[in-house]
């Protein structure tokens, strides 16, 4: 298999006496959707925060496209091409879609905002994901549904040419139809060559869209397995600790 976009080896992180990550390995490949599942407290958030640079790992090796990197702040993660789409979305409701997609990275022309260029790129990014649910790129985000907001947040990472997009519970607050839309979007995102890592509690969604499933149990990676080679029952077993691959 090709070089993974991100490869974690024996990553550890503790908070005082509590060791949250006890030596985790993980590989995420370009063009593939990898699910990160695990019960509450398994260390999913901590793992993600390390990748996004919010809380650096204590020890372990992080390879980005085969090269060893030390991600110690969010800006550096963004420069590498790691984008996190948070559960609470981090959009400004009083701004429109274009303004949100370019927030913090506005393009300038003669020191003033280059609106036409940003509008064009935002439209193209949405079109590249075949988004049809958004009527106008100049709509305020406050007028969008939850699924549409998720769409905008994901499209923002496309705009930034992300190599690894991490989605934190992308479908948690969505209805059936909207979940379907977002999952399709995730599929197209991976098809465009991006490595996608999804954190989810919803195994039905995971089996629908993910190529691989990585299971965390109490700070250890129990398994990382191809979706086609496992079943929902097995994964539940891994998550709850009643089943393991080694030992």
């Amino acid at each position: 298999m090709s070089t993974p976009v991100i490869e974690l080896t024996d990553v550890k992180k503790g908070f005082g006496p509590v060791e949250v990550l006890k030596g985790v390995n993980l590989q995420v490949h370009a063009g593939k959707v990898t699910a990160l599942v695990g019960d509450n407290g398994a260390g999913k958030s901590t793992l993600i925060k390390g990748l996004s640079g919010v809380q650096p790992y204590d020890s372990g090796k992080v390879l980005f496209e085969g090269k060893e990197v030390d991600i110690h702040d969010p800006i550096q993660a963004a420069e590498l091409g790691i984008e996190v789409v948070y559960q609470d979305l981090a959009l400004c409701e009083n701004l429109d879609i274009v303004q949100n997609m370019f927030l913090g990275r506005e393009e300038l022309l003669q020191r003033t905002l280059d609106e036409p260029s940003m509008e064009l790129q935002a439209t193209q990014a949405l079109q590249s994901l075949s988004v049809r649910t958004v009527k106008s790129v100049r709509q305020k985000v406050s007028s969008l549904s939850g699924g549409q907001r998720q769409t905008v947040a994901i499209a923002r990472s496309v705009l930034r040419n992300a190599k690894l997009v991490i989605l934190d519970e992308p479908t948690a607050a969505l209805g059936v139809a909207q979940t379907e839309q977002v999952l399709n979007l995730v599929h197209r995102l991976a098809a465009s060559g991006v490595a996608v890592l999804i954190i989810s509690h919803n195994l039905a969604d995971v089996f629908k869209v993910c190529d691989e499933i990585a299971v965390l149990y109490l700070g250890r990676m129990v398994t990382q397995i191809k979706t086609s080679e496992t079943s929902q029952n097995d994964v539940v077993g891994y998550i709850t600790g009643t089943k393991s691959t080694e030992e």
Partner: protein
Amino acid sequence: MSNPNQAGLNLAPQEISSGHEGGLVDQVKAYFSRVKNGDMGALPATGALLVLTALFAYLSPYFLTKLNFANLFVQAAQLTTLAIALVFVLLIAEIDLSAGVAAAVAMDVFYLTTTFGVPWPIGLVSALMVGVILGLILGFFVAKVGVPSFVISLAFFLGLQGVALILLGDGGLFRVEVPEVRAIMNDTLPLWGGWLLLFVVVAISAGLGFYDRFRRSASELVNRPVSLLLIKLAFITVVGGAVIYVLNLNRSASEVIEISGVPIVIPIVLFIIFAGTFLLDRTKFGRHLYAVGGNPEAARRAGIKVVRIRITAFVITSSLAVVAGLFHVSRIGVVEAAAGRTIVLSGVAAAVVGGVSLFGGRGRLVHAALGALVISIIDNGLGLLGFSAGISFVVTGTVLALAATVDAVSRRRGGTVRRT
């Protein structure tokens, strides 16, 4: 909305619109649908302005006289500037209750320096520096330390009253003997100056409008119908022309002296509105200010330096407030220790009445200016009708309560009440 492409001839089918599509009728329809969804903008203030003008014109024979018309503009100038100043902190959902007294203290410094023989431009710069420094300190406490702006600016409100007393001593009025400053509110442009002002305003509006269209076309984006821009320009020309025509008539009550022309303060206020709007709409800082007001956490995650934006907002507010204070001193010609205590609340009222949201992230400078005109007209009209200041306060308070209610309700309808 989306019309199907004919026979697939269009190479890049625009599946997602930009709100610029369609003819004049579509644009008008889109505007009304935005209003229906709670994005009222300047509509309530404009409506109030028209209703109040008609009402007072009907009730008082003096309201629509040339003299009162000019007075109204001059009286509104100070409140307009203060309301515009406050928009910058209101946009990030903060408040600066000390803006009025901060301006008063700055003008005390102006008085003291000029009285001791410092040239007035340097005195003015010192006054502005006082505004900048006070804004920096206030912003530091709010953005860096995390003290609620309501409380810390209240502390400044009290403390600065004390500073004014210490600087000027108890009681008494002190004449400001700077003709250039007195001229701002009391002198007028030559008649041709008024027409030149109109020309400049129309030329800048047209220039920006056509430049934006050109840039969109260059990116092969759809433009709004050109008639929309032409209507806007025609509106500015007609209304502005009418105002300047009236101001250029002789409005003096006596036969001996003639008073005519546009008060000097008007081009200054127009410039502040223009420069401020440019800053808010077309620069990175402006965009980030709105973002911080809308969702500070999202702004932070997007890499925006939230603390710096917040402090800058406070600095802009208190320095612009100093300009409002300058207008006040220019009009009455004196400084006093008790100045600037009540006007800040009228300034907040003006901004909110104009449609600037108290919840942050929504509002424009023009809205604040319209709101200031509404409050000034209420004040002026009720005064002409012989009502006491008490009635004027009650009415203004009621209007503010109404505006704040509209703000809260329209916010809910816009779906922005919860932040999840």
